């Protein structure tokens, strides 16, 4: 445990307000000048079941969950199932306490609601407390809540207890509650807060544990943002005013944020019958001249394969987002995984082309979603933003100024009616929408309703004016032109000021590579390893197609070995890298995790040490090492 951070875990059952309480707690501490980062764990269940959210609070910026945690607030699970002899789920009621002990650091704090939880139900509880030097606060939070208000206010009581133990100024929390609660709810919550706070001061001795919240100050105004927020905001600032979707965890978050905000800016959101329709609607809107998007998670995205191919063939710009969750099939709906990479890269028939971004944190998600729209509309190609349950839902503070950007409603390579008048047409007057010799493979679009722009869009191979053609010369020309766009896009992305994320000393001996949501955790592991005396740097790749071959080659060439970290069992990102680079099978090994929980920094550091520096035997069963081809 480091002294400069508090990792606070609030645990209970689904439906007990864990998410909203933790969000308010994180925001209050952000307002108090601290850096915050949340990590959530919840079941696919509306009511009850093991649920927690961690809020990591630090003086320094944080971009990952931490290694374990040091403060547990265990509330009850209001919707726990009744234990039965042969039922696999055991005593659910006590899980907010029992399930969270393994990761609690030595010397950590346990606060539990003694009105709901009984430690007699937990094997060896007292011994474990003794062994680990935990500080236990058994407080009847439920009774305090009932006395002043309603039972749900036990969350407020728990937060008050947290403040009393860690030294957080009550006003930090209270002022946020005042902002977010109606008065008649706020008043009893204040009484609950004060009573719980006083209880700690009066009933527990001054031998306070060394778990305190540091004091800090931000240089500029911050906002608490999730990856899903950032993706939606990137889309809105690019002038996206149409979304179509079907609910599916975890993509639903982006869909919800867009659906709530679009009407305020005169946009349209369509919840439709299935994901095939969702993607098709986005194409229809884009074809008719509106910047449009759709998205889903694994199974829903599978249904979008055919419209995706149609977008490629008709060169209809569209942005799709794919929020990965653990698969295959329904998998584990609320758990993160990065196993849809190949699905997103390769789904849909034929020689298909698309652009894939996999942003890591919120800031990158905002920036790359904007890039995804720019590329899609400029090059008339589908862009996909690939993320997952982890970075979609993690909240972190970023400077508000990140969003202080100009909107870009530009429709990309589209002609006006005036321009159409001078554009090439076939002798019968149809616009040559798919000209053979477009710049960078791009032939500008016209939009239905424009005078002089009529053409046929078709999923069949087609001639310049769009009519169906199976002529071999035309075929080769059109395939080559569509492919040419990818080189142009690669060159375009290479020119960006900010590209993929490099971290650690440039002259390091070893490298760690990852993509998407694991980037922050990898970077923290790199810092830990360098502090321990190892020589390591990292590369977080977020531009996956077209692949940044030169940049990655240079990275791989510059080190002795590379450990590739990803949340799946089949090393998809490592496979992609080897395919794109065409070599280095002997240099790349894998560290994989697919148990439904994201990596902790220490797991990566430990995986690096045992696999690269030592003999490759990992101590735990949660991660798996796959050696390089030559080992």
């Amino acid at each position, binding site marked *: 445990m480091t002294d400069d951070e508090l990792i606070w875990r609030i645990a209970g059952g689904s439906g007990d307000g864990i998410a909203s309480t933790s969000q308010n707690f994180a925001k209050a501490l952000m307002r108090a000048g601290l850096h915050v980062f949340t990590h959530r764990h919840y079941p696919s269940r509306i009511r009850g079941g093991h649920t927690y959210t961690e809020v990591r609070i630090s003086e320094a910026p944080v971009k990952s969950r931490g290694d374990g945690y040091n403060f547990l607030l265990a509330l009850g699970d209001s919707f726990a199932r009744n234990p039965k002899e042969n039922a696999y789920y055991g005593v659910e009621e006590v899980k907010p306490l029992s399930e969270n002990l393994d990761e609690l650091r030595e010397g950590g704090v346990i606060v539990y609601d003694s009105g709901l939880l009984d430690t007699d139900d937990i094997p060896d509880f007292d011994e474990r407390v003794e062994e680990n030097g935990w500080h236990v606060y058994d407080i009847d939070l439920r009774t305090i809540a009932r006395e002043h208000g309603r039972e749900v206010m036990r969350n407020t009581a728990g937060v008050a207890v947290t403040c009393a133990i860690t030294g957080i100024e009550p006003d930090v929390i209270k002022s946020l509650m005042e902002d977010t609660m109606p008065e008649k709810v706020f008043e009893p919550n204040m009484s609950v807060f004060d009573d719980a706070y006083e209880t700690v001061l009066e009933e527990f001795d001054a031998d306070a544990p060394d778990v305190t919240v540091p004091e800090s100050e931000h240089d500029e105004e911050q906002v608490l943002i999730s990856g899903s927020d950032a993706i939606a905001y990137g889309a809105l600032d690019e002038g996206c005013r149409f979304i179509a979707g079907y609910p599916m965890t975890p993509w639903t978050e982006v869909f919800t944020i867009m659906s709530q905000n679009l009407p305020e800016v005169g946009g349209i959101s369509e919840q439709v019958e299935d994901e095939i329709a969702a993607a098709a609607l986005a194409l229809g809107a884009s074809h008719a001249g509106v910047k449009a998007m759709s998205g889903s998670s694994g199974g829903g995205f599978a249904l979008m394969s055919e419209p995706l191919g149609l977008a490629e063939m008709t060169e209809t710009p569209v942005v799709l987002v794919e929020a990965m969750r653990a698969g295959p099939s329904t998998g584990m709906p609320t758990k993160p995984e990065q196993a849809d990479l190949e699905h997103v890269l390769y789904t849909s028939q034929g020689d298909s082309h698309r652009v894939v971004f996999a942003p890591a944190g919120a800031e990158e998600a905002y920036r790359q979603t904007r890039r995804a729209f720019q590329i899609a509309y400029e090059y008339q190609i589908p862009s996909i933003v690939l993320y997952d349950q982890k970075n979609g839902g993690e909240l972190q503070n970023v400077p508000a100024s990140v969003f202080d950007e100009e909107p870009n*409603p530009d429709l990309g390579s589209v002609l006006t009616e005036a321009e159409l008048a001078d554009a090439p047409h076939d002798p019968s007057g149809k616009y040559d929408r798919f000209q053979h010799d477009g710049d960078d493979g791009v032939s500008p679009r016209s939009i239905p309703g424009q005078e002089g722009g009529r053409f046929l869009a078709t999923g069949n191979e087609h001639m310049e004016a769009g009519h169906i053609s199976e002529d071999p010369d035309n075929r080769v020309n059109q395939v080559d032109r569509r492919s040419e766009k990818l080189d142009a896009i690669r060159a375009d992305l290479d020119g960006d000021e900010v590209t993929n994320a490099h971290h650690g000393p440039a002259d390091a001996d070893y490298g760690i590579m990852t993509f998407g949501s694991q980037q922050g955790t990898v970077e923290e592991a790199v810092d830990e390893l360098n502090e321990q005396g190892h020589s390591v740097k990292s590369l977080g790749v977020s531009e996956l197609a077209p692949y940044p071959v030169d940049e990655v080659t240079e990275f791989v060439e510059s080190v002795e070995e590379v450990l590739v970290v990803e949340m799946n069992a089949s090393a998809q990102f490592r496979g992609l890298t080897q395919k794109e680079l065409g070599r280095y099978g002997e240099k790349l090994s894998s560290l994989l995790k697919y148990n439904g929980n994201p990596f902790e920094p220490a797991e990566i550091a430990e995986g690096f040490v045992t696999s690269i520096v030592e003999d490759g035997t990992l101590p735990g069963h949660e991660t798996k090492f796959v050696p390089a081809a030559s080992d």
Partner: protein
Amino acid sequence: MSAFSAIGEDGERDRNEYTPGLEPQPTWCPGCGDFGVLKALKGAAAELGLSPEEMLVCTGIGCSGKLNSYFESYGFHTIHGRSLPIARAAKLANPGLTVVAAGGDGDGYGIGGNHFIHTARENHDITYIVFNNEIFGLTKGQTSPTSPKGHKSKTQPHGSAKDPIRPLSMSLNAGASYVARTAAVNPNQAKDIIVEAVEHDGFSHVDFLTQCPTWNKDAKQYVPYIDVNESDDYEFDRTSRSEASEMMFETENALYEGTVLTGRYYVDDRPSYQQEKQRIGEMPEEPLAERYFDDDYEWERVYDSFLDKHK
């Protein structure tokens, strides 16, 4: 000023304006009912005075999917069964467009059946023409959703054990606000029905009987046809849901007994989806597509509009 000056252009139109110079002659088999649809659509477009460039014709896959290869307008030849979601989004994006979707009975009642049901339910202001030939033509004669029970084909060698789908009843139940059946053998009625369907504010569904002389029937088998609105043998109120329902049921049965009934079956003046969506404040009054060409429009910024709740 509109960026889409083809929209709302008044003028006398000749049906030949909708014949593409690039592909004037269709590749359909001689005697195919699809010619009847093309002819009726051209006639209807001319009668309505529509500019080819204010029309978007979205088709599915199959012989019927070639409609927009042979009809001069903006066209989107989509994928099997998906013309409707593309068509309805285009209409939402730019309500000024006249959007016609078309496809076969396999396309609309089979693979795209879910879209058909929901597009009808939502009452999008588009016209949907289903080329109902009771067969999969382009893939060479397999049994389709409207093939009669017992229909033998290479994929149903012992004859289909399935009852055919009831397209008119399904449409009514799903929520279409204009439902008609016409036939290729009756081009005048077909043209008039398409005119009405396009003018109708809401989802208009035209089940268009198109003979497939190669795989099942020739035109003779759709003659004589009876217009239920004109025949004295049939009397029903097409604004009455229950009377329309009975008439549709009888019409669907009759087809497989050799009697071809056609006409307008149901008309409902409930608000279109666009009107409903505008009423609840979830669709702008001005066409969205115009905004991207409006240099004076002040685009909202996230920084100003949505960031406060994150502070």
